[in-house]
């Protein structure tokens, strides 16, 4: 029995030493990160914070999902039903959302407005950023600052004068009201993001292309834009998300139900007086946030690399 005991101890200690730092010399390169190598420490420094983050980020989605699937009876009764679980799943709320409101139309409107506004803003921002960063005309710095200042003016101040303009142009209650006003905050934002990105591309490439016989426009299209794809993607995602979630302009400039966007439609049509249709509200929020989440997950690598300013050779 003593031998077994010893063997077990040896094995346990072996396991322990495998976790801990056994022989510092045999550790892989980059010894400055070796505190990440031992397992118990890795749990404390990496996995537990990661789990907390994950919980904080995913809990709203979970809450939206279970609320969507609950019947009203279950939703308002915490005594007999657990608030964290669904006893009798139902699709009634989703049915109500899709067939008793104009939700599909709202989704379509949001998509249309976001895509067109993002595209417009990107085109303008690319031209603006290139001109400010590379043409170096007189007052380029000043223009850059002015654009940035324009971004700092909050929409809650701007929406009243903008409403006047929208109304006078006869755009009120049309998708154009949003497609043309969203770029007021998207263009400054994208311009600044792209200016930083363009700056990281060596100037010699452009000079070389200039000697090779390219025009300014060809340089932009054939050299600069292919190299700025990560920057364009992150600017695009940002612009898309901002337009997708925009609330004040959409609330002010749109009145008829069939022209509303998701954030406005859900709030205005699923809250009747003091009656909140929680199930359908949550269903609407869930369906509304999924496209953006999916978009992010596809481009996350580009997005991170452009945020951290990855300059490539």
């Amino acid at each position: 029995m003593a031998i077994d005991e010893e063997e077990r101890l040896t094995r346990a200690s072996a396991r322990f030493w495998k976790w801990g730092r056994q022989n510092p010399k045999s550790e892989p390169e980059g010894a400055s990160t070796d505190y990440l190598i031992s397992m118990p420490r890795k749990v404390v420094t990496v996995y537990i914070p990661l789990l907390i983050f994950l919980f904080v980020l995913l809990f709203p989605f979970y809450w939206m999902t279970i609320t969507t699937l609950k019947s009203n009876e279950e939703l308002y009764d915490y005594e007999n039903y657990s608030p964290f679980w669904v006893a009798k799943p139902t699709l009634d709320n989703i049915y109500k959302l899709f067939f008793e409101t104009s939700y599909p139309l709202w989704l379509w409107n949001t998509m249309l407005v976001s895509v067109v506004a993002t595209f417009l803003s990107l085109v303008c921002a690319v031209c603006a950023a290139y001109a400010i960063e590379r043409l170096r005309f007189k007052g380029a710095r000043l223009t850059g600052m002015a654009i940035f200042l324009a971004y700092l003016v909050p929409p809650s101040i701007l929406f009243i004068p903008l409403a006047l303009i929208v109304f006078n142009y006869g755009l009120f209650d049309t998708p154009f009201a949003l497609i043309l006003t969203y770029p007021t905050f998207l263009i400054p934002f994208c311009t600044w993001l792209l200016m930083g990105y363009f700056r990281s591309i060596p100037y010699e490439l452009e000079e070389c292309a200039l000697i090779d016989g390219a025009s300014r426009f060809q340089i932009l299209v054939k050299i600069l834009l292919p190299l700025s794809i990560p920057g364009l993607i992150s600017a695009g995602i940002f612009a898309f998300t901002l337009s997708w979630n925009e609330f004040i302009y959409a609330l002010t400039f749109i009145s008829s139900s069939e022209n509303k966007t998701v954030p406005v439609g859900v709030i205005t049509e699923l809250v009747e007086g003091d009656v909140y249709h929680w199930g359908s509200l949550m269903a609407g929020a869930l369906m509304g946030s999924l496209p953006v989440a999916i978009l992010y997950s596809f481009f996350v690598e580009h997005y991170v690399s452009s945020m951290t300013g990855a300059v490539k050779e």
Partner: protein
Amino acid sequence: MASVGIHDVRKSFGSVEVIHGVDISISDGEFVVLVGPSGCGKSTLLRMIAGLEQITGGEISIGERVVNLVPPKERDIAMVFQNYALYPHMTVQDNMAFSLKLAKAESAEIERRVKEAAEILGLGAYLERYPRQLSGGQRQRVAMGRAIVRDPQVFLFDEPLSNLDAKLRVQMRTEIKALHQRLTTTSVYVTHDQIEAMTMADRIVVMHDGIVEQIGSPLELYDHPANMFVAGFIGSPAMNFIEGRVARDAGETRIVSADGVRLPVPQTLQAADGHKVVYGVRPEHIELANGAGGVPAEVSVIEPTGAYTLAFVKMADAEVCAMFDERHAFRPGETISLAPRTDLVHVFDAETGRRL
């Protein structure tokens, strides 16, 4: 191919003039190196030839045509940049074909020329690779290939070798020279490395603080430097300078240093007695004196390199470097007797720096 004319060219950035009237005429097929310390305006001058900088005053012509207001793409030039400036998102093939595609050349013609250039530079196996997959030397070759395919009037090189390691630099230096001998395209090459200039150039233009100090073949500059700057810049190790005065007595001319050491000079020297001068002698033109008449020198450091021996000594109150073909084992502190080769020393006016 074409000649390049630079006439009284000036360049100002704002109110600061950095190039103060430069005249250089480069003949057809010549390999001219612009050399000078950093900030002397050599790169700016090259960029003006390329059309990347505007010309503040004067005239630059390529062939018969004045190009002051001609945009870079119409100047028919090719430029190799210090960091190669290869397009990272294009393969080697596309990099080399880019200018031809922009010029709307036929695809068969493009392919033929790219293939030809790749063959000259030994890049045949790398045509499908991206710049990031190449080594420094290969990238350098691609940058040259990009210039070659265009078959331009003039090649411009802006310190193309300074990003390479020492060994590769020597190798590429020879390759560029061989390439020029083969293509005989007029080339303007900017470098701060005087060895590069000496080994590659048909003619060297030494620049300093925005002016041309001297233009000449490598050996002309070495043998007959116009002034102290050129004398000190060309040659490695650099020329030694000793301050002194001209002394004529009993029909013999000497330079006497501040502490009274008498240095030998050619008797043909044209300078008044007592004139303040700087005595210049190259390390390789100092010999060990046998017998009397040598100049005493105290050894501070000996550097044996195998091929030659460098001795840093204190002579006539100045730090002097001497270079011997033989191997010597002097001790630090030892006093030796040195003899500058009288026919090869230079005497400069102390005030103007000009050679007398």
